[in-house]
């Protein structure tokens, strides 16, 4: 059997890279991790592998690049089919993809509005963000994870984004636990999984990175 080569072009603070690290860990796939200097100079390999977006994460499987974190997580699920991350029934899969799309469109952008704004814009951003989390809380309901009893696709897409919430809370002057207690319970539940705990950065470190981002963007 030929040896598989799996390389991840990575950045420690990126929640999108976090998704891929968790998915690979869930599947028990061994890989080589290459940290990219995304704020400095990107490697030739990154620029050649993702010429369209020039962004991490990029998964290189036997040299072939897969880009866009959600596409990568789907790819990992299909290339290593044991321990599936998506439900089996088409309707439940569509539901999972719908919420994955919602998370992709709303969370990071919503959070960015909080850390990059001041005054009125910040208040609006905060309010909108909490609304988004409440919608997610609604769909989670009484379930342990978004698709039921098992940790899967939607949880993987969402949990890394929560490492940035501490930064949003500091800038926005709110606590997710107070506004969306059920959501917080789900976060804690996910963080108990080894694949998640090992893959994700400390929120305090992310906060320091966001502080630097603010400075770089001239916000204070």
């Amino acid at each position, binding site marked *: 059997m030929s040896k598989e080569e799996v390389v991840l072009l990575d950045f420690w603070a990126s929640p999108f890279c976090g998704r891929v690290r968790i998915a690979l860990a869930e599947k028990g796939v061994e890989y080589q991790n290459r940290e990219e200097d995304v704020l400095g100079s990107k490697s030739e390999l990154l620029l050649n592998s993702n010429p369209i977006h020039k962004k991490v994460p990029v998964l290189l499987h036997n040299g072939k690049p897969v*880009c866009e974190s959600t596409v990568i997580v789907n*790819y990992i699920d299909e290339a290593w089919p044991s321990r599936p991350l998506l439900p089996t029934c088409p309707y439940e899969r569509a539901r999972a993809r*719908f919420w994955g799309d919602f998370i992709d469109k709303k969370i990071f952008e919503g959070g960015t509005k909080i850390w990059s704004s001041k005054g009125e814009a910040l208040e609006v951003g905060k309010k909108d963000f909490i609304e988004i989390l409440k919608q997610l809380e609604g769909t989670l309901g009484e379930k342990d994870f978004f698709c039921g009893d098992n940790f899967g696709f939607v949880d993987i897409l969402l949990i890394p984004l929560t490492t940035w919430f501490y930064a949003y809370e500091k800038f926005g002057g709110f606590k997710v636990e107070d506004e969306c207690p059920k959501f917080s319970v789900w976060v804690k539940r996910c963080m108990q999984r080894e694949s998640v705990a090992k893959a994700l950065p400390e929120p305090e470190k992310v906060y320091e990175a966001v502080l630097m981002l603010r400075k770089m963007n001239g916000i204070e």
Partner: protein
Amino acid sequence: MAEEVKLFGRWASPFSRRIEVALKRKGVQFEYIEEDLSNKSPALLKYNPVHKKIPVLVHNGKPVAESLVILEYIDETWKHNPILPTDPYEKALARFWARFIDEKFWAIWPAVKRAILSREKEREEAIEETRQHLKTLESGLKERKFVGGESLGFVELAANVIVWLFAAQEVLGLEILTEEKFPTLHEWSQRFVDDAVFKECAPPRERLIAYYKVLYGASTASK
């Protein structure tokens, strides 16, 4: 068992038309419900409470929303004549390109609207922004081969927005999408126009252009 398939859509929406093409391609009988977005039906609000948008596919009473999600659902439910490749890597590429096309469209369309509605400097800026996004779309699609007819694939279904971009150009009254500068977009647009399956589910071009002209109150006088 009798299947009940409904599609809530809009005649002028490329996202809704994609789903029509996919269903026709699979030979799935469906009931089409035209939505008036200024007066959304209680059914639409019930089936898509999160976004309140079309298209929504309702299969035996269960709703699926977001056009690319719906396409994957259709492909997994009616397995013959597949839309997506079976190989995971090819599938990943198809998903990547479809997302890219949609992202570009949602960057271009507001810029075009601004160009139509603005004057002078703001209009010039919007036109330039449109041009830049179109260039990215062109260079992105350059390497891909259009796969049409009964084999219209996931990427081609997503790329139907190219036809809408050409219609928008007519409304703008400017020749931005020239064959010389955008040969790939031109080729794809032509392939769509010639494609029998696509044509069956496309809005009449003149009707679309007239509709947008009215919607954006565009005058042919550029200024």
